[in-house]
């Protein structure tokens, strides 16, 4: 088991390295750097000014060298200005070149400086992740129990009225992407044209003061899209369990139907949905980006849109590291959890 986890962590690190290099390569293509220079300086910069701006920031070195600097395995670039002052990635405002370390990358715990938010990347990611974490917590709290209940009710008796109705509902929710359901919810529940006005159309206030009124719609929008899929998987696994031999034996012994469902079927039926729920995290990440844009909730997804729109290289890299980390860790947890829940499978 220990070896298995060690191997998985190794693959995880390799994947993260490959992906960050890919992001690094794409964000460091010259047209992207030009865009960065123009958003940082001004939009009417001439080609020479762009060149000298990029030269000063050390952007014109080769990509592997810059990547090494970002990782912290190469000494970072320093530029001596005409007045003798030295500027560079490691030299924070208010420090001199002598005081600053030579190496500053993620190995040293320095994630860089965000050019959009004018803050250190680690603080940006920290605050935004906390906001998104709150959103995700409520999404999970709403989505997982309701999806499991839906799936179990539908899977108890295959082909029954409950099954047909709930399955149709589940299919409809999986066919409704967040930007459609979100728009429909906003139209029905918040606009003055319909006049219900039960909820708020934006979740900006929910960042400081989340209430049911301003936080429920974003949570519902994300939860609904993921719910249908989990419910269908739960239903499939439940119908499979309900046709198993031991369930028939229990029925023939005279165990009551509620008892069969609760005591005999449920535990085995919940193994497969567990992995599905874990693998839903990457999908939720997409939903988070759409919903945070739609409801103007300034969390992780919103930061991603800002960073990508302005080619904020350091922030984009940090965001991709975090999201890749989330994806791979949930995969690892789902694998380990599957082995733990299902004693028939052992990793040799």
């Amino acid at each position: 088991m220990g070896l298995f986890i060690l191997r998985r962590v190794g693959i995880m690190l390799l994947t993260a390295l490959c992906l960050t290099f890919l992001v690094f390569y794409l964000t460091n293509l010259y047209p992207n750097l030009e865009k960065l220079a123009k958003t940082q300086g001004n939009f009417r910069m001439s080609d020479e000014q762009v060149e000298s701006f990029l030269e000063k920031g050390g952007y014109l070195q080769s990509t592997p060298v810059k990547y090494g600097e970002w990782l912290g395995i190469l000494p970072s670039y320093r530029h001596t200005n005409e007045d003798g002052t030295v500027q560079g990635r490691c030299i924070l405002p208010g420090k001199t070149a002598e005081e600053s370390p030579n190496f500053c990358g993620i190995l040293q715990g320095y994630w860089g400086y965000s050019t959009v938010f004018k803050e250190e990347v680690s603080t940006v990611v920290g605050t935004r992740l906390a906001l998104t974490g709150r959103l995700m917590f409520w999404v999970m709290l709403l989505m997982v129990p309701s999806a499991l209940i839906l799936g179990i009710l539908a899977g108890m008796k295959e082909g029954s009225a409950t099954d047909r109705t709930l399955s149709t509902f589940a299919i409809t929710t999986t066919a409704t992407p967040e930007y459609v359901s979100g728009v429909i919810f906003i139209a029905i529940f918040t606009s003055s044209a319909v006049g219900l006005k039960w909820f708020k159309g934006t979740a900006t206030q929910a960042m400081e003061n989340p209430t049911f009124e301003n936080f429920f719609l974003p949570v519902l929008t994300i939860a609904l899209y993921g719910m249908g899929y989990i419910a269908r998987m739960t239903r499939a696994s439940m119908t499979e369990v309900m046709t198993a031999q031991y369930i028939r034996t229990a029925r023939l012994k005279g165990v009551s139907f509620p008892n069969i469902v609760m005591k005999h079927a449920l535990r085995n039926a919940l193994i497969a949905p567990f992995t599905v729920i874990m693998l839903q995290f990457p999908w939720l990440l997409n939903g988070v980006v759409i919903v945070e844009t739609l409801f103007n909730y300034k969390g992780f997804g919103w930061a991603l849109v800002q960073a990508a729109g302005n080619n904020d290289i350091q922030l984009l890299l940090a965001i991709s590291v975090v999201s890749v980390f989330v994806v791979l860790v949930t995969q690892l947890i789902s694998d380990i959890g599957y082995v733990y829940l299902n004693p028939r499978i052992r990793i040799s």
Partner: protein
Amino acid sequence: MEPLTWTGSIAFLNPLLAIALVLMTASILAWILASIVLPEPQMTVNPDGTLTSGSGIRNLIQALMRYSFLASVGLAVAYIVLGILMGTSAGIIGAMMQQFLPVWFSLILLYAMSIAFKRKLGLYGKLFDSPIGMIGFGLVMFWVFTGIFGALDLIVTHDSLSQVSGMKNKVPGTPLPSVEDGEYAWYLLGGDNLARDVFSRMVKGAWIVVQIAPLATMFAFMVGITLGLPAGYYGGRLDTLLSFLANLILAFPVILLFYLLVTPEIVATGVPNYMAAVLFIFPIIFLGVLLNSRYYTRPTFRTPLLIGVLGVALWLYLSLISTGGYVVNTDAYGIWGLPTFLDLFDVPAGILVVFVSVVFVNSPTVFRIVRGLAMDIKTRDYVAAAQTRGEGPWYIMLWEILPNARGPLIVDFCLRIGYTTILLGTLGFFGLGLPPESPDWGSTINEGRKLLSVYLHPALPPALALLSLVLGLNLLADGLREESLKD
């Protein structure tokens, strides 16, 4: 001109429809409750051997549900028929139904032909045995026909880009201030914030989806199959490497990838052109290997066949990837492609990058599915028999394993077209790739949402259109799965 109401002179149908719908909802809820609360219906055997079940509350509810469902369907058909006959005097609904006339006609023709010959049509014919599959197929074909006829300018009432002054954000059914000859006198679903016709834009948007989504999904399948079959069949190092690459792409959040790939800056560097050149070569490899593995024992037939098929495929491939005589044309350098006089069609750079990234995002998932299926099927007896006969590995993969994996693949193909439609909408929603004035559903939803608290009509039609198309594809996949499991 008078503004149109929603139903005009057929408004007498509205209360009837409302009653039918309320009854149907109530009876469905009662049905669910009854199936939980009431005991199973008792069957009694009569002396003559027939069965009677007690006609309890269950049967009553079931009958109520059936009749209210039939009534709703009948009323909906009445709306359509009356709308076709009466046109604008039946309000906005009637006028729209009349505009959709070619679509209704094609749908009826398609269904009549398919049901008449359903026993001779294989899996497609079996689809017409499942009500769910029929509903799904109907929804999908509605939008396909809408897209095609919309592209032929049959359904649209106005040009999807032209702006009419005084029609900004006007509610559905508003008449135009001054009607010229031969011009449609109303904005059926209102005007958007640039005074364009919402209805026509929705219809035109269907064409964009119908063009891109199935084709992109097909390319993704070609890539996934060409790489997934050997990975699953051979296993070992090749499998490890390809799986690692697939997981690499899958670990990337889709939206981040789109934001990195689908930007004007990336288009300027020519990266999408390189990706297109690599990704689009897989169908050619697939076709070549498919035909060669089957016919290599008959070189006299194989060689002309391969030359013909691959020649056409290569020509299409080169015209697809080259634009204006270049494969890659950046400021710094260019790579020569097919000369312009041989170039069959040009793909605009914005569309190409959207297409490439959608294929790129979808193919690793297809790869994983195909790989799993190949690993499962290669242990079967008929594969062992083919190996004993001395068939080559590619013959076994493409002519033994692939046809036997078709069931799950067809189902996944339908689901994946739906997912691709959602992805295209996502791209439009974030304003990536497609030009801002493009009528695709994602972009129109994005434009409409900004004024959503005051005007609902620009955002809702494309949202509901996208919802119904994807729902149709999901139902179709469900119906196909059910029918293919039956044998």
